[in-house]
């Protein structure tokens, strides 16, 4: 009888302990939000939200804290990565789900898994010794190789696995009946893929791209290593507007990482404010991806 009471006691205790563990993630999210907000408040108060967001100069020594250049840097490098990486990732996803024979899949998929596992600092190093010197050969005044284009290329490879994996899964989840129905009507394989399979998988594919976007915005170390880190609003360095990608830049993430260890006072607070902006941006991106995924499920 006593052992029965003891057993019930353990059961009840464990239930509470496990519930608390389950709620730990929420607690961490709340703590992160509160702490970052609390530390950012002085900056928001003293500099002003609008001035912080729209200011183009970041000179902590002079008390100037505008992060527009970093917002532009993060935005442009992500755009570049999307333009380079998304077509490759989507084509790979279609290849793996619809076209490649089984033995090819067994080569390609582990390769992509490995790409996903390579540490970002290794990508950064690879960018510094391979991509940057390559970009430096583009003849343009002031082109040092370090800049948005190098960073976009590195980032494109880094988000490739995320986008390819989720898209492949989305295409594979399309009911087999759709494929058979289309082929039975005399559609070619390609017509079936382009007119039935991809449209049916579209919500999943879009959310894959959006999740990739979120990852790109959050990348830190590899960006610091190849983007040049200058706090300037990126501009075209020659007459060609595309040469804006040869410009050096700094990302929101890089701004935090590079300066936090020695910043004090309003400067430190402004870096936390940078974190809040990044956090909000990524939450928006991720929740829209989740929204699209759920919409696709119904």
């Amino acid at each position, binding site marked *: 009888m006593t052992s029965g009471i003891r057993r019930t006691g353990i059961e009840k205790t464990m239930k509470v302990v496990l519930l608390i563990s389950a709620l730990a993630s929420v607690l961490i999210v709340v703590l992160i939000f509160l702490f970052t907000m609390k530390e950012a408040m002085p900056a928001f108060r003293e500099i002003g939200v609008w001035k912080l967001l729209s200011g183009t100069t970041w000179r902590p020594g002079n008390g100037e804290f505008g992060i527009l250049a970093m917002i532009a840097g993060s935005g442009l490098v992500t755009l570049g990565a999307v333009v380079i990486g998304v077509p490759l990732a989507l084509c790979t996803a279609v290849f793996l789900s619809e076209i490649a024979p089984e033995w090819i899949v067994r080569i390609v998929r582990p390769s992509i898994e490995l790409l996903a596992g390579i540490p970002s600092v290794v990508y950064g190093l690879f960018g510094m010794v391979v991509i940057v010197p390559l970009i430096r050969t583009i003849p343009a005044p002031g082109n040092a190789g370090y800049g948005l284009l190098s960073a976009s290329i590195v980032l494109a490879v880094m988000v490739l696995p995320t986008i390819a994996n989720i898209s492949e899964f989305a295409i594979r989840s399309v009911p087999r009946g759709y494929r058979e129905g289309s082929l039975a009507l005399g559609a070619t394989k390609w017509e079936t893929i382009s007119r039935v399979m991809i449209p049916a998988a579209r919500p999943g594919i879009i959310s894959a791209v959006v999740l990739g976007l979120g990852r790109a915005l959050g990348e830190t*170390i590899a960006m610091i290593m190849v983007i040049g880190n200058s706090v300037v609003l990126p501009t075209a360095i020659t007459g060609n507007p595309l040469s804006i990608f040869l410009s050096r830049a700094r990302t929101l993430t890089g701004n935090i990482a590079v300066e936090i260890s020695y910043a004090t006072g309003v400067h430190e607070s402004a870096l936390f404010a940078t974190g809040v902006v990044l956090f909000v941006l990524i939450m928006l991106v991720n929740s829209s991806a989740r929204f699209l995924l759920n919409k696709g499920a119904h």
Partner: protein
Amino acid sequence: MNKRSRTQIAAFGMFWLAGIVAVLIMAFVVGYIMVKGLPGITPEFFTTSPRGGLSGDGGIYSTIVTTFYMIVVTLAFAAPLGVGAAIYLSEYSGNTDKRIIRKLVSIARFGVETLSGVPSIIFGLFGYALFVTAMHFGFSILSASLAGACLIIPVIIRTTEEALKSVPAGYREGSLALGANRWETTWKVVLPAAFRGISTGILLSAGRIVSETAIFFVTLGGSYRVPHSLMSGGRSMALHVYYLAMETRAFDKAMSTAAVLVALIVVMNLTINVITSKIATKQG
């Protein structure tokens, strides 16, 4: 040949090209790191610590020790919490009519999803504010591990939940029908059956700690010495690559360290794949 089949050939050519390019990128990145890095890897490279200063000389001994500490301490925090959370979400949350519990479960799920989308530099910033500064742990293995734990908790929860879900319902019913309660069933039947799956999740998380740089860049301090306690600062191998490349410009040493790092990740991936395929054959 008609236009429709020509279009198909062109499109398929493009997809084959994409698949080949993806493999070539992997082969080029890994191959380049290995070819440039392996020549510098000698036994001394593993047994000596970095010389420090601006020379870039020395090996990676202390960084291996720090990486090892980071894995152990981070998992000590994250694994019990993550596995516990997953057990609650998968084993306990289903059989309740209480509205408050259901509400708590959906809040918990939201927390996990949000956490898994937070970029690592935010964990770094948070760790810097809370552990390094507010709690006065300083730049230390303790601060860095606590911040790192936030990164891997969602990973452990997700993989553990998957492992628990793959345990056949019959196991639970069998145990419950013999008069075992929920916890006894979980502890004695479900967890052992899900052990392999959970261990791949733990291994995956260890890999994330090995790879992570941004969090530790702002919480671990970067000392190149061998850490002697939880309160010591240090630098993991990944962080060492960063300092070698960015501060001392010792690219050959950076390449060698990166090669060790990539080799370690490959071994971990292979181990995970072996365990996973064993699970598959066991269940198939």
